[in-house]
């Protein structure tokens, strides 16, 4: 029983981080209509810069702010200089450019900082609270709280704010957006910048757990990708629910079936959702017809 409880609780904790990794992907998807595979590497640049600052004496707060600032900048630059300009040739070249950019950044990181995993500072390891006998550190609590506020914030942004609505409009009908004077290029740059910031934020929670290497944030983005496919590509809430469900499901699979089955279960459930509900579990709105 204790095994089950602990599995469930820790599954939720890690699942919320999965959701957060999906959030950055959703921001770009909702404006541009494709997935960015560069986010993990954008985060890695920010994290390595942050780590260098931390090792030369910066406090945690400054480190965290620096990580987010650098990721924001790099995200914005990748969008402005590479991906958004390529969109004029279509979504496919733009989406492929995110893969190319990812490989280039990770190649440069391998060259400069090397492939060794390193430890990354975290909020605090000390125990904050205990749920059903499972101790949660302040880092866990911060991860859950930050993720939750990011999700609420993004949800409100896309449904209530003028800019968020305009971003969705641009993705919905590019021509109409242009004819109505919606500044689609600027909105896309904003989405890349925001997604960069979110990647950095995600990295702050991933790097202490997985240790920081050139691939650590990327390995987690796989789960984020599944989360948004299962949750529904344009549903922020769906990503939250699906990410958490994935965390619990993979944890239970690992505990009660076989740890080697985790990827199989993950991808199989993603395919199943795609087959049964192509728009994801929470993407139903898209199909509404009166």
């Amino acid at each position, binding site marked *: 029983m204790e095994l089950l409880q602990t*599995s469930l609780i*820790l599954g939720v904790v890690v699942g919320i981080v999965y959701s957060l990794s999906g959030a950055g992907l959703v921001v770009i998807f909702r404006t541009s209509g494709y997935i960015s595979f560069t986010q993990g590497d954008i985060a890695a640049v920010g994290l390595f810069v942050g780590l260098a600052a931390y090792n030369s004496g910066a406090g945690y707060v400054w480190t965290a702010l620096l990580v987010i600032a650098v990721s924001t900048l790099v995200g914005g630059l990748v969008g402005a200089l590479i991906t958004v300009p390529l969109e004029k040739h279509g979504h496919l070249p733009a989406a492929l450019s995110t893969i190319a950019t990812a490989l280039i950044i990770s190649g440069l990181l*391998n060259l400069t900082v090397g492939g*060794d995993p390193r430890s990354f500072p975290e909020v605090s390891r000390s125990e904050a609270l205990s749920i059903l006998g499972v*101790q949660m550190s302040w880092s866990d609590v911060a991860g859950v709280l930050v993720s939750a506020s990011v999700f609420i914030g993004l949800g409100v942004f896309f449904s209530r704010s003028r800019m968020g609505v305009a971003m969705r409009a641009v993705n919905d009908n590019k021509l109409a957006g242009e004819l109505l004077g919606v500044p689609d290029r600027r909105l896309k740059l904003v989405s890349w910048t925001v997604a960069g910031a979110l990647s950095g934020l995600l990295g702050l929670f991933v790097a202490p757990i997985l*240790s920081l290497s050139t691939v650590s944030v990327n390995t987690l983005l796989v*789960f984020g990708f599944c989360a948004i496919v299962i949750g529904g590509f344009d549903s922020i809430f769906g990503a939250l629910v699906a990410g958490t469900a994935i965390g619990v499901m993979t944890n239970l699979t690992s505990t009660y079936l076989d*740890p*080697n089955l985790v990827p199989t279960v993950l991808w199989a459930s993603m395919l199943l959702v795609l087959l049964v509900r192509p728009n994801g579990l929470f993407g139903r709105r898209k199909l509404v017809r009166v």
Partner: protein
Amino acid sequence: MSKKLVGLTVALTTLSTALAGCGGGGDSASGAGGDEIVIGAFSPLSGPAVSASSGIYATKAALDKVNDAGGIDGHKIKFIIKDDQFDPAKTPGVTRELVETDRVSMLCGPQGSVPFGAVKDYLAARKIPTIVNAGAPTLAGEYSYLVSSPFDGVGAMLAQFAVEDLDIDKVAIAYSDDALGTSARDGAVRILEADGLEPLGEIKYDITATDFSSQAIQLKATGADFVSIPAAQANVAGLVINAAEKIGYKPIWGLSYAAQNKTLVDVTKGAIDGRAYFATPYITEESETGAEYAATLAEYAPDVEVNSGATIAGYTIGELCVDVLTKAVEAADGEVPTSAQIQETLSSYTADNDYIQGIDWSDEPDGAAAAQILQLKDGKYVESKPFAPLP
């Protein structure tokens, strides 16, 4: 000789060799005495696994030291390292280059179980012997000789150490479902059963996973005081340990040379200092021979991590290659030995020296049958139990 001069000499040698190849097309290895012994290895030198390159640089350091002292009976060793990025899809290509273009007579310390697995049969077919820097017992063969102790024995030694030396009978095992992991687990179970015990848990993990909290929960639920995770590399061991310590489970950890490096200490933020033991067939920097090792490394490969299990393994293999080649040159009456002569030497080779003990390739081409236990203490690896035969 200054570094620049060495570089220039190497460049000129390479150039002249190349020119000789162009012009003559005949046998360039004519004449006695000064001819080079050409050997090679593959290793990641770039790419994500580049950190595994410390072993090959250490091997090279051992060979460079001998070259600077005049070589083996006047023969310099030419050591060609090719980059396979630890990618078994690239290994066969660079290995063919080594064998067919560079005409190496043996491979000395190529890195990694999976990459070597991709070329083991090819090398055997070409009758090119190899001293492998990898731990998987399946890699041993007629032409491939292992140095690192088999993980079955490593797992057994850790279990024995827990029960007999630490007086702990609550032991759990974490393992990956592959040749290394399962043999380490079987070795541990064998010893525990011999003592009338059984492991409180055998918890499986996937080395490609990102989340190890499930393993942490299961390990904690066993209530074991000693968790043996012998086959794990530092990064995976670090993740398992971190996940466990995060939920308040702080047992004594049993590890091996595979995880013995800075990465583990760094990733776990030193939390396991004093609570981590490493079974290894290799020496430490702190020992008497180790001082010589550290000095050589400081001179020939100053950038690599001295205290890493992989570096020490690489260096030890370099020393073994020198010893084997010395015997092979003797057998060839002072000439450059052929592959067949090196193979002949290897197949009857035994070693019980300052660097490694319990190598007997005349019996089986597998790794060292003796190991010691080190304890991580104040960031250093100190001897906890001296060299003894693996149980």
